[in-house]
């Protein structure tokens, strides 16, 4: 269903962009039709975010030409782009955690009365209305940072969607959302589209892309390989275009039932009894055996991410006990948890990466005490890091660049690599495949399998059914902070999981 032909609302010709030695974009021709939803897919580091940042005025040194409504433009800043009606939700959250929900929804554009004074009443009311359209009902005066990460993502989306922009770019907007929120979001997109808004939608969830998009563009290795009508292609085709090779098993694993089977006679490594933290989770008990992967599945805000943090000693438990190998342990700090052999990869990149430090320092930070007593051994740090960078295919295969210069998915891999040198006893992964492309997700699945063979107990907490289904041997479904159902040694399908959550 292609809407509005005639001049494209936005046109880009021969766009090229380099970051020092790294080529991010080569000769890209790209255009947007008025009122379409344009899906953008490609592997991690393919250049999707870079192209969008050019449109949104974030990067201004580039080759080629950009036209809006036929007029050549060259934005010098995000503000320029905004003035031209272009809004972008970035891959990394940019909400201000200390501000209230309402302030974040209207960041920079607070409604004012005739005297130029911010009208709080109106701001609160409109913020609440906007968010209700996205399916969340929340007190607009709450401090944003205290909300679950998925809710924060929705707030950020809301800010851009309702800013009145004509072209809205959504860079992996659904990576922290669970199915009901995604559905709401798509309904809102449909409504705004009908009013003439044009969307670019980047995601690694290919079903989602194919469902909402009118046209789809595929990127590979800094180049555009195809732009097609979404209705004319299927997921397998898209994957093939993305990776340029035969198709991966992961892609269709989700269609039927998955058979869950946990190791029978492995010893219990970790056990939790009656874990409670007010407003997050209550009375949660479970065991994890050596070499077992336990999936913690639940919609956003069901408590699984908070539980993951508590296991790492990051937030305090108000009740319950935890034990490793039958010994009760106390988790007063992350250092305690680490000493007991627990490691966590949290869901938020901002919370786990040192953006201004090179890749190798980001990887070595968790093993420094093992490789050096007093003096650092940078050569060894680099060597270890290089090993992980190669094994996980972290592009651009270098350990010196600052982490902030890596693409989103590659950053995620850096955070995982941190725990792979000296294996923990219990590894907790919170949304481990967030922002990863199909191939990278496969890699993570393989890594987790490898860890299992080495007897590591793994907990995978996610709001994404696929993630849990592909990795887990046993699945605990969380609802409103409690374990609502357990799937063990039986077949389970995505639908069954969704129904239980």
């Amino acid at each position, binding site marked *: 269903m292609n809407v509005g032909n005639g001049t494209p609302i936005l046109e880009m010709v021969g766009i090229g*962009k*380099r*970051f*020092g*030695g790294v080529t991010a974009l080569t000769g890209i021709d790209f255009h947007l039709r008025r009122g379409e939803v344009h899906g953008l897919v490609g592997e991690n580091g393919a250049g999707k975010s870079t192209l969008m940042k050019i449109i949104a005025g*974030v*990067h201004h*040194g580039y080759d080629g030409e950009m036209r809006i409504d036929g007029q050549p433009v060259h934005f010098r800043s995000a503000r320029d782009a905004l003035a031209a009606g272009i809004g972008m939700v970035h891959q990394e959250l940019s909400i201000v955690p200390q501000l209230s929900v309402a302030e974040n929804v209207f960041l920079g554009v607070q409604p004012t009365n005739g005297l130029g004074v911010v009208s709080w009443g109106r701001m609160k009311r409109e913020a609440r209305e906007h968010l209700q359209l996205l399916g969340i009902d929340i007190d607009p005066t709450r401090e944003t940072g205290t909300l679950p990460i998925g809710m924060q993502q929705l707030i950020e989306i809301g800010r851009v969607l309702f800013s009145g922009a004509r072209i809205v770019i959504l860079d992996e907007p659904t990576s922290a959302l669970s199915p009901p929120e995604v559905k709401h979001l798509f309904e809102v997109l449909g409504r705004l589209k009908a009013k003439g808004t044009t969307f670019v939608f980047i995601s690694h969830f290919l079903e989602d892309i194919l469902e909402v998009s009118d046209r789809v563009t595929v990127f590979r290795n800094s180049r555009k390989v195809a732009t097609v009508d979404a209705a004319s292609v299927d997921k397998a085709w898209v994957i093939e275009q993305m990776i340029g090779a035969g198709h991966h098993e992961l892609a269709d694993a989700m269609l039927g039932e998955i058979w869950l089977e946990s190791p029978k006679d492995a010893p219990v490594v970790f056990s939790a009894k009656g874990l409670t933290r007010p407003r997050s989770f209550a009375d949660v008990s479970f065991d994890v055996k050596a070499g077992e992967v336990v999936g913690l599945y639940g919609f956003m805000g069901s408590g699984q991410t908070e539980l993951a943090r508590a296991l*790492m000693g*990051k937030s305090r438990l108000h009740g319950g006990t935890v034990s490793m190998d039958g010994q009760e342990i106390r988790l007063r*700090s*992350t*250092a305690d*948890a*680490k*000493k007991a052999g627990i*490691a*966590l990869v*949290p869901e938020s990149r*901002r*919370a*786990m*990466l*040192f*953006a*201004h*430090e*090179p890749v190798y*320092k980001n990887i070595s*930070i*968790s093993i*420094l*005490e093992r490789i*050096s*007593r*007093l*003096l*650092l051994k940078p050569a060894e740090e680099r060597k270890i890091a290089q090993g992980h960078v190669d094994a996980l295919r972290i592009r651009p295969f270098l350990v*010196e*660049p*600052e982490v*902030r*210069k890596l693409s989103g998915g590659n950053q995620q891999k850096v955070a995982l690599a*941190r725990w792979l040198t000296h294996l923990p006893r219990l590894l907790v992964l919170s949304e481990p495949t967030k922002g990863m492309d199909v191939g990278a997700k496969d890699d993570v699945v393989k890594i987790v399998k490898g860890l299992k063979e080495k007897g590591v107990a793994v907990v995978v907490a996610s709001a994404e059914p696929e993630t849990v289904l592909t990795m887990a041997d046993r699945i605990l479904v969380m609802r409103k902070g409690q374990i609502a159902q357990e799937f063990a040694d039986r077949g389970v399908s995505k639908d069954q999981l969704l129904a239980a959550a």
Partner: protein
Amino acid sequence: MNADVASAAGREGGGLGRWVAGRLTNLAPLVTLLFLVLVFSLMAPSFATVDNLGNIMRQVSITAIIATGLTFVILTAEIDLSVASIANAVGIVVAYFTLQETYVNIANVPMPGAVAILFALLAAFALGTVNAVGVTIIGIPSFIMTLAMMQIGAGISAMLVRGQIAYAIPDPVRFLGSGMIGPFPSIVVVACLFLLIGHLVLTYTRFGRYVYMVGGNREAAEFSGVNVKLVIAAVMIISAMCCGVAGMLGVAYYGSAQQNEFDDYLLDSIAAVVVGGTSLFGGQGGIPNTILGLLVLGVLNNGLDHIDIDSFLKVLIRGLILLLALVINVYAQRLRNRAA
């Protein structure tokens, strides 16, 4: 410092402008320094002399010792406002435990020199520990905690000297504060040693790495299993110990121990660290920056004395130049973050 990181960043597209933006935190103080040296050399013939260089070095030595510890604190994105007051208190403590002339009427407790020094160092350690406990265990923001410590330090100073001035201090302290080691004033040698050790610790030790990482992203450090509170406690204590040494040597340098003797050092030491380009938001900068900052400050303070302007105006000029340097620090930080 992080030459490897810097060179990797330098090669990204955008040419000179971006290269400068990435390095502005280091370039700005260097340019400021060269500019000040040039201006003062042209305006006052007495400025650019070997003798005066020695003066400048001596004049910044006490600040340098304090700033070494403060660099650690600021790199973790904390602050220590009690530096001057701890220096003052510890300087007075060492005099308090030394036999004074009879006309110094402070009812003190004379001890052998080594014991007096030990007590003084213990006092510094204790005050630093109080700061550390307040910030990490109780959770008081360092800004507030050290503000309180500033008062406590002033209180200790007041109680021990009771408005008097003490002159006698142990010989080793006198030697290090006002003696000569070969052709060099010993206080300059001590200051250089402090800066050198500080630099080595920050650059080559595991603890130093933790300091940077905690400042760079505290949450990420925590998620990596770094004992963040321990690191912060350690930098607060390191800062207090540096202040303690600076306080003792300062008493020798000035030849007396009295209240409010160190008041100027709070502003000077913070200015030295920040003007040098160490980020107030933590994680970026280091001792080389602090050295630059010290030189800017030293040249500014000394140079203004060599040129013929209203002495009341000097204070204002000094303030304005410091303000400018601070603006550049914050602005450079922003540019660096944006140089994406």
